[in-house]
């Protein structure tokens, strides 16, 4: 299902004239134009408007002058919002820089942990009989379809200090559980705050089903003939795995990793509701900052728009990487 970007720029072959063709073209235009205009209104216009707002000191509660309240009480400030975000000493800017760091830390933890769980599990899952495979896969996918808010409530209960299930499990195996899982800023392991680790674990629990089914599908698509050929040539199970399966899986793993990174950068609910950005902003993230600056505090929409543009640029770069991987032609 790969999308080839280059095909977009090829010249479309349009059949020559004819009443029938003209009628079809008219139908295509009249049907598509409203849909595209609609889309433009709620996606292309907003992205442009967000970009414009990021150059203004903008708040919707102020009555600006001119087009869309831009100007007047909402003055043009050039790149001041961006300069503030990168170098400023205001509280939102300082929290933002911390948030960017935390967002990358979160992503850097989620990706390896996710692959560590999903890859071996997929390999094992693919090897068992069809019936059990469907059963296990269905169960593993349950957290993925659950509402994130319910997931937060489940994990808040798991992490309850002292008597939560995790504390009890720690005690059962003779370990001393942390006094507080989500609200003690001083517990830091290898430079990672405990609250962040807790959020990572809860997120991977909720999210691993996606990558799992993708890897199982990729494993299933490896042609049996390749494995048979290896077997005929005298390869043992290990050799077959490392020389046939792993190389053929590489592209899928790469692609899935990029998608996991893109989605990790946008995680919102568990940060807002489970750890609430705390303690001491240790789990404050980019998306949480955008939300808080735009909707919770001060209606600092210009600054929040600049933040969202930074998020957009990061994701755009990753998407380009994703398309590059998709474009590499692969044949088994």
């Amino acid at each position, binding site marked *: 299902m790969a999308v080839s970007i280059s095909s977009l720029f090829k010249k479309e072959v349009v059949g020559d004239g004819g009443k029938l063709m003209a009628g079809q073209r008219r139908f295509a235009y009249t049907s598509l134009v409203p849909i595209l205009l609609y889309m433009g*209104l709620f996606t292309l216009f907003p992205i442009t408007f967000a970009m414009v707002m990021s150059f203004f000191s903008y708040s919707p509660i102020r009555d600006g002058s001119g087009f869309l309240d831009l100007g007047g009480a909402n003055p043009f400030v050039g790149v001041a919002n961006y300069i503030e975000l990168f170098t400023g000493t205001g509280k939102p800017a300082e929290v933002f820089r911390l948030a960017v760091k935390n967002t990358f830390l979160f992503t850097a933890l989620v990706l390896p942990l996710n692959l560590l769980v999903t890859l071996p599990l997929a390999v094992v899952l693919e090897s068992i009989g069809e019936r059990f495979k469907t059963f296990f896969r269905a169960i593993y996918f349950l957290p*993925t379809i659950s509402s994130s808010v319910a997931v937060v409530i489940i994990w808040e209960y798991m992490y309850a200090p002292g008597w939560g299930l995790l504390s009890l499990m720690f005690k059962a195996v003779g370990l001393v559980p942390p006094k507080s899982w989500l609200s003690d800023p001083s517990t830091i392991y290898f430079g990672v705050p405990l609250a962040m680790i807790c959020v990572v674990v809860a997120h991977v*629990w909720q999210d691993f089903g996606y990558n799992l089914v993708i890897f199982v599908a990729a494993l299933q698509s490896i042609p049996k003939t390749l494995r048979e050929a290896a077997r005929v040539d005298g390869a043992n*199970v290990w050799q077959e795995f490392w020389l046939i399966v792993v190389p053929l899986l590489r592209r899928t793993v790469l692609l899935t990793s990029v998608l996991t990174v893109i989605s990790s950068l946008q995680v919102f609910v568990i940060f807002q509701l489970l750890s609430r950005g705390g303690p001491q902003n240790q789990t404050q993230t980019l998306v949480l900052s955008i939300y808080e600056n735009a909707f919770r505090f001060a209606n600092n929409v210009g600054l929040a728009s600049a933040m969202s543009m930074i998020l957009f640029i990061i994701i755009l770069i990753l998407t380009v990487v994703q398309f590059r991987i998709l474009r590499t032609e692969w044949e088994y």
Partner: protein
Amino acid sequence: MQPSNNKLPSAGFLLGKSGAYTVLIVGLVATLLPFFYIIVSSLKTDAELRKTPPDFFPQEPTFQHYTTILTDDRIPIERNVMNSVIISLARVAITLFTSSYAGYIFAKYHFKGKNLAFGAILIQIMIPFQVVMIPNYLLVVRFGLIDSLWALIVPSMVDAFGIFLMKQFIESLPAELMDAARIDGASEFGIYSRIVLPQMGPPLASLGIFTFMYTWNDYLWPLIVLTTPEKRTIPLLLVWFQTQHSSNLGLVLAASILTLLPIFFVYIFVQRWIVDQATQSAFR
């Protein structure tokens, strides 16, 4: 040499059969234990919930928290469930129509500017929601839709990814059938509704289920645009529970189970389509 085997021993058999099942069952327990623990805990009495250390299973299981949620007039759960149902179904119906219709035109018609238009669709797939949520909020305010269920429907009537998926599928349908219908005098819209649409069961089911789940669980956008308790959707109700009733743990747990159950119930019947859709979306 490996002994020849009629079922190809795949990589998972590195661990042997019992090793493989051990890994799978450990994964199963890790997945289900958190669900199971809140289910059994939601059946505990308030006194049992406060007990430290707690018992894993309730001593006297009770449904009191469930009955409180369903019968207490101060908890507008019926209203909130209705809101979620209405919005989810409306979005599914609209998305399925716009996606299949636009997908049909992209797949089967030739016209100037088609590649440019489709490029615009692809660009929209890449734009994350968080980047456009602020301007979308301002738009919704300007249109007077704030704090109304329309605010959850109107901005998402066209789904770029849905169009993309439907186009991929419709391209694989043979053109002969459409040409035959055309010769028989069918209108272009008639070809869509009577020839193309009836063949699109599986992809429409996948997209529909996916849209339903997404809408049902959506939290950030409703959080921004809805304020009145009666307008809330299920996830907002849950958050309200979590913040207002944090002292009444039994209610919070029971409420989350109640919101998970409908989705799990639907899932039992449609899990194959969901898995297909999840796999496809990765290779878009």
